[in-house]
């Protein structure tokens, strides 16, 4: 089928240059014997068809590349296009032969390359009139033709194989459910030759599939018929030059149209048709044929006797496939034979961006690792915080127990006071009952007093139990005024025992904070007890502890002021450290725990003191938003 090709302008131009090259060389060598020994060798390529056919372009590419790759040997390649499918007849034959003989009289070819059965036949008919004795290398000639003629030994070449059988076999492997084998051909002489070949090939598939020839249809009808095919069909074609209406075309274009219209996969044996929409087929590419031919030409040009060349009878075919079409028809890539050539394969994302993918993967892995580390770290931290919270709660509780121990005398007094009253009242009542007098009114009064004192005693115990409880820390809305009042009532007795006056300056309005009542009270008790310690042993007028409240800017502050000796500036920074104490008794945890509690409530604690002028501890806590749960 290759019939003279080189359709591109580049090739045309280069052909002209090469044509003029030897001419100039001939002028130059006129007086130079030495130069004659390096005179260029001429290669005439007779393309069977016109130059624009894709098959020719492919073939030319392979041929030229191979010939030109031979070093240090000027070669001129001349191309002629016999245009035989469309023109023919005895007169054309004769005129063409004369034309070639006259044309190349000045540049006699050293080797002639000829394409296709008809091209070789032309040359065989006109060899004596045109280029007698010039070795001929044929390409793309069918095995059948070669076997039908007796070939002189200086005409060599490898037969073209169009592996329809292998192609159909492969198609049926890809489409095991196919029941119809549709074969499309055209109406030109050439097309009918193909039809004959196809008919001889498909006979062996009868029984497995039903062959169905679509020949001689108009392009429109053909495309409609192809569009009506179903999944049970496979189409095999090589395209056609002429349709049923006599419209001329080029096989590759017709295949492209068919592929667009067909609802069944199309297979072909022509390599240029890869990319038009066919799935593929077993084929020898024209470029490959061109390379084989070029190698033979090179051998002859270097002086090898053509008859001594042992060329293979035919070039083996290989399976060529369009990857996109494999995808389109749902053909599993695994079922593609390993030795097949897959065109237009879009590399998978991973193949295309291997480096980037690896980098990304690495990054993701690193990130995942980092996240894992951070998560572990976070869990560890939470556990640590929980442990710390537990320890802190325990410590706070221990500190409260210590405070309660300090308050034992006062607490006992506070409880014994009502108990004493109750007992005395009961005794009095007994005496009254023993006497004969009817003093019911007095007894009623006594019982009311007993009840009141009992409640008073249990209230003391309740407050004490709250202070001593190992409770679950629970923040709720509470009024700082109440907190101060509670602390004051718990400490009033102790203050009396120590002869210290506690003065509270409350706010007129409720100032709510979010806090744990027990812990807030603990802070207040710690601070007030410290203040009472600070003023112990001083003159009575200085034995005063002032607890005052203020509220501004979303913060409630509680200050506990004493008029003691104050705290020296060097000691102030260590005040809130654990186990730092200036007292003989006590663990030195009061202020440390107070700070922990205040900070856990989102607040701060600080001391303001000048030696000799007493100290003021200020606790600032964020005021609760309105509407927060009570």
């Amino acid at each position, binding site marked *: 089928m290759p019939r003279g090709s080189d359709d591109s302008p580049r090739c045309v131009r280069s052909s002209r240059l090469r044509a003029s090259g030897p001419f100039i060389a001939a002028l130059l060598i006129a007086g130079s014997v030495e130069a004659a020994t390096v005179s260029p060798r001429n290669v005439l390529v007779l393309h069977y068809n016109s130059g624009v056919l894709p098959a020719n372009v492919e073939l030319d590419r392979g041929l030229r590349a191979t010939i030109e790759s031979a070093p240090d040997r000027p070669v001129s390649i001349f191309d002629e296009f016999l245009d035989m499918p469309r023109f023919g007849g005895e007169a054309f034959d004769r005129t063409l032969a004369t034309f070639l003989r006259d044309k190349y009289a000045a540049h006699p070819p050293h080797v002639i390359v000829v394409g296709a059965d008809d091209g070789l036949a032309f040359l065989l008919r006109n060899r004596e009139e045109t280029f007698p004795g010039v070795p001929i290398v044929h390409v793309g000639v069918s095995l059948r033709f070669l076997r039908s003629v007796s070939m002189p030994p200086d005409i060599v070449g490898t037969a073209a194989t169009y592996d329809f059988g292998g192609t159909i076999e492969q198609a049926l492997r890809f489409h095991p459910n196919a029941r119809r084998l549709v074969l499309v051909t055209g109406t030109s002489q050439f097309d009918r030759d193909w039809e004959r070949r196809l008919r001889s090939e498909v006979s062996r598939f009868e029984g497995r599939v039903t062959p169905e020839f679509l020949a001689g249809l108009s392009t429109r009808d053909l495309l409609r018929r192809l569009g009506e095919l179903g999944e049970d069909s496979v189409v095999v074609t090589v395209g056609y030059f002429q349709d049923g209406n006599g419209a001329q075309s080029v096989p590759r274009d017709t295949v492209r149209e068919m592929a667009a219209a067909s609802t069944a996969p199309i297979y072909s044996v022509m390599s240029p048709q890869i990319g038009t929409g066919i799935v593929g087929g077993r084929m020898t590419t024209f470029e490959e044929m061109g390379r084989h031919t070029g190698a033979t030409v090179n051998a002859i040009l270097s002086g090898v006797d053509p008859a001594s060349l042992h060329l293979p009878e035919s070039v083996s075919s290989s399976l060529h496939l369009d990857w996109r079409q494999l995808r389109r028809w749902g053909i599993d890539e695994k079922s593609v034979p390993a030795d097949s050539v897959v065109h237009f394969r879009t590399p998978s994302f991973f193949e295309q961006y291997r480096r980037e993918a690896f980098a990304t993967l690495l990054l993701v892995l690193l990130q995942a690792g980092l996240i894992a580390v951070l998560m572990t770290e976070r869990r560890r931290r939470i556990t640590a915080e929980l442990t710390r919270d537990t320890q802190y709660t325990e410590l706070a509780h221990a500190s409260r127990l210590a405070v309660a121990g300090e308050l034992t005398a006062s607490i*006992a*007094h506070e409880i*014994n006071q009502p108990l004493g009253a109750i*007992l*005395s009242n009961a005794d009095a009542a007994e*005496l009254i009952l023993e006497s004969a007098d009817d003093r019911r009114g007095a007894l009623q009064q006594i019982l009311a*007093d007993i009840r009141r004192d009992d409640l008073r005693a249990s209230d003391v115990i309740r407050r004490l139990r709250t202070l001593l409880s190992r409770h679950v820390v629970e923040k709720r809305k509470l009024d700082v005024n109440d907190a101060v009042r509670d602390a004051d009532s718990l400490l009033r007795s102790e203050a*009396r*025992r120590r002869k210290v006056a506690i003065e509270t300056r409350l706010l007129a309005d409720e100032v709510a904070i979010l806090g744990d009542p027990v812990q807030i009270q603990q802070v207040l008790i710690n601070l007030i007890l410290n203040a009472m310690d600070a003023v112990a042993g001083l003159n009575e007028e200085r034995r005063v502890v002032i607890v005052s409240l203020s509220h501004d800017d979303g913060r409630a502050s509680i200050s506990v002021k004493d008029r003691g000796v104050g705290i020296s500036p060097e000691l102030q920074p260590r005040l809130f450290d654990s186990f730092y104490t200036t007292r003989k008794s006590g663990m030195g945890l009061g202020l440390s725990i107070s700070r922990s509690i205040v900070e856990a409530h989102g607040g701060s604690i600080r001391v303001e003191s000048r030696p000799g002028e007493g100290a003021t501890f200020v606790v600032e806590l964020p005021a609760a938003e309105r509407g927060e749960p009570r």
Partner: protein
Amino acid sequence: MREPAVVHVVDDDVSQRTALLRLLGAAGFETRGYASAGEFLLHPVPDNHGCVLLDVRMPGPSGLDLQDALRRQGVTIPVIFLTGHANVDSAVRALKAGAVDFLSKPVDRDELFEAIRRALELDARRRAEIDEAAELRARFATLTPRERDVLDRIVAGKLNKQIADDLGVAERTVKAERAQVMQKIGASSPAELGALAERVRKLGQY
């Protein structure tokens, strides 16, 4: 007839005070209540029969402070302490200062009554001593200056003749005056006269 004994209850805790007054009242004691040491001191120091039931811990001056103040004023009324939380230091201090008892609240009725009984007995005894001393002072007050001179010399152990020489009078005159002194004082012998004179001197009235 003597005024009845009064139990003075000093306690700042109103319910405790009320209960004590009620109990003591039911037991037949005459009582009087005070809310603080100061209030007790503001009232004229009771001269009559009684005792003080004193709370140790009170705002302002404590029970112990009040005890000191009474002692400094020479008021000998017996004191019983009542405390909510007994503390060795204050108990020792109170008892050294002469407290009759140191009781813990809640106090047992019988224990309280026993303490009050002892306090009132002590008070009665002291009061009797005071009454006796006052009578003795009154008897000594009836002596003329001349008779005191004679008394001094009798107590010093001088004989009638020596006294007569000292005073420049007859021995017989001394004898008569001596009999007069013995009669006025109510002593039956010179030894008894000497003991009585010594007691009066100790009371600082002579």
